[in-house]
């Protein structure tokens, strides 16, 4: 089963190594990983999407808690979380196809951030499935380059 795990850590050197190292040692495959600062400058949030059974997950959460620099760990169930991923997609577009591409962009509430003679660069921020759907629809125009951040997530409400 896929899990989104949020790890709140002290912003200290080596902390990402500690956290990611634990996942690989315990046989949990990291699918995506995003790190950034939080509302507190000395605290960072690492959001990890990983796949594995519940018992392994429980063990990993406990092992994460044992790390001195780890302050809090949450397993975020999809139905209780706001999840987003950001992608930048550089897609082939010429006079003939540009309009069709921008229609897709509008449909996904994405935006064009760079226009060149033979390409458009699109920024999309959405849930993972949406990003993937959009990518699929754009494939026929020819994707030149693509980058996706890992998933970030926050628990809904209070």
């Amino acid at each position, binding site marked *: 089963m896929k899990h989104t795990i949020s790890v709140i850590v002290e912003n200290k050197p*080596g902390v990402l190594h500690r956290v990611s*190292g634990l996942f690989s040692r315990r046989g949990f495959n990291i699918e995506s990983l995003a790190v950034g600062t939080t509302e507190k400058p000395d605290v960072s949030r690492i959001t990890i999407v990983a796949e594995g059974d519940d018992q392994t997950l429980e*063990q990993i959460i406990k092992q994460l808690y044992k*790390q*001195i620099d*780890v*302050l809090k760990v949450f397993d975020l169930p999809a139905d209780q979380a706001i999840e987003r991923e950001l992608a930048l997609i550089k897609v082939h577009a010429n006079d003939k196809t540009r309009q069709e591409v921008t229609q897709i962009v509008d449909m996904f509430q994405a935006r064009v951030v760079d226009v060149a003679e033979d390409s458009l660069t699109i920024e999309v921020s959405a849930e993972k499935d949406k990003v993937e759907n959009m990518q699929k629809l754009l494939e026929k125009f020819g994707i030149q380059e693509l980058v996706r951040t890992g998933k970030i997530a926050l628990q809904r409400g209070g």
Partner: protein
Amino acid sequence: MELTGAQALIESLKKEGVELIFGYPGGTVLPIYDVLYKEKAIKHILTRHEQGATHAADGYARSTGKVGVCLATSGPGATNTITGIATAFMDSVPLVVITGQVATNLIGRDSFQEADVTGITQPITKHNYLVKRAEDIPTVVKEAFHIARTGRPGPVVIDIAKDAQVKKIKFKYPDKVNLPGYKPTLKGHPRQIKAAAKMISIAKKPVIYAGGGVISAGGAKELKDFAEKLNIPVTTTMMGLGAFPEDHKLALRMLGMHGTAYANYAIQECDLLIAVGARFDDRVTGHLPTFAPKAKHIHIDIDPAEIGKNVRVDVPIVGDAKQTLKDLTEKVKPENGKHDAWIKQIDEWKDKYPLKYKKDKRIKPQYVVEMIQQVTKGKAIICTEVGQHQMWAAQYSKLTVPRTWVSSGGLGTMGYGFPAAIGAQFGNPDKIVFDIAGDGSIQMNMQEMATAVIHKLPIKIAVLNNCFLGMVRQWQELLYDKRYSSTNLCNNPDLCKIAEAYGAAAIRVTKPDEVKNALEKALKIKDRPVLIDFAVAKEENVFPFVPPGQALNEMLID
């Protein structure tokens, strides 16, 4: 007070009560060694290898309960400590390992004797630090000792850049630590204790399974009170030897792969297993799904990650073993009498399947261990290496006191025992310290004989010399059809001559009737180490033996 980083380090160590450092100098720790040159309050012991220094600090820590400290230079000095750190980590031993690092402007340039020590030690330490600023030294030392000795103890590495050792700072030692992410739970949750007490009070066939956590917590007395109040038999892991007196009527002694038959049968038949400070290691459980199949499980451990790691637990209690056993003893009411039928059953097993070996005209290794126990009246600190001799020492030493058993359990480090014995002897100058060794293991850290001789340590090294890597040979005999691949040590050097070359005493024993005399003679030598080379029966096996992957009750008794 203005001090250099190196001076601040030594002052900080003094504030933590450090008396001894085991170490080995080198380029990036020269400023620290320069401070030690004039230092009176802290004694530095020069070992002959950094691995020896780390194991010595470990043996000191295990036998005294204090934090062991060692010091090594960057690069190869630091990487030589790795086996020692991993050994301490697996057995939850409090160590502070200080390593030098190249100067900050050289870090990351593949400089001479540079190694990423915090990176390398990250999976084998409780925590580690790379110190680049002299100002951080006092806080880091304070935190490192706090982390090493509290909660589930473990090794902490402090890697200090050379320029940070030289820079001058205003020294002030912090009064307390500020670690928001580190708050070990010491007191078990009252609701869990209540649930456990209820389960215990209705059990008909309970067994206590006690591990090294009882010793770390200083909870041997609480364990005895608990077992005696409820009349529950106690088995200990190898790490738990000494936590419960082995001559006690409730003692089942060691369980597991080479445990007593009666301990293993009791585990397989019990209806309640109370695990305290133990971690269901594979050498203890055998085939996990068939381990204690009829039992409900109570698991007391200070480390929440141990609970539910290997087995499903009915009542988990996160807490310190000493405190939790005390609380549990107060809470529980024996409603089920004294489990008379169960105790009777266990006594029958004890009669029917005692630990035993066949005596003949050769020296039996078990006999040597029994004689060591006899001539020292069970008062010695027993250190061991790893292998058959370790198991015989565990089976026949009849330990009764905590911190008298110093042996590498989790990592199973050959070459551990002798340097650990050096640390144990420094920590316990008035006690008799034995290293029970094999002819394979003793050759792994033989160089520390120099350390022991220089400091006139009267350590007794009893080599159970069977000219084999005996434990591997035993597996080859029983599981690989006697194909003794690379386990024959028939070209061993003369160990007595080696010992004598270092300035130690040496005694060779070839007949059973010489064993006791040799040991008594060795005990009289008080100004240097003595190596006793026992030519023991070559193909003796350790029994009982639970073959790997089998259930405990499927053990081979002989």
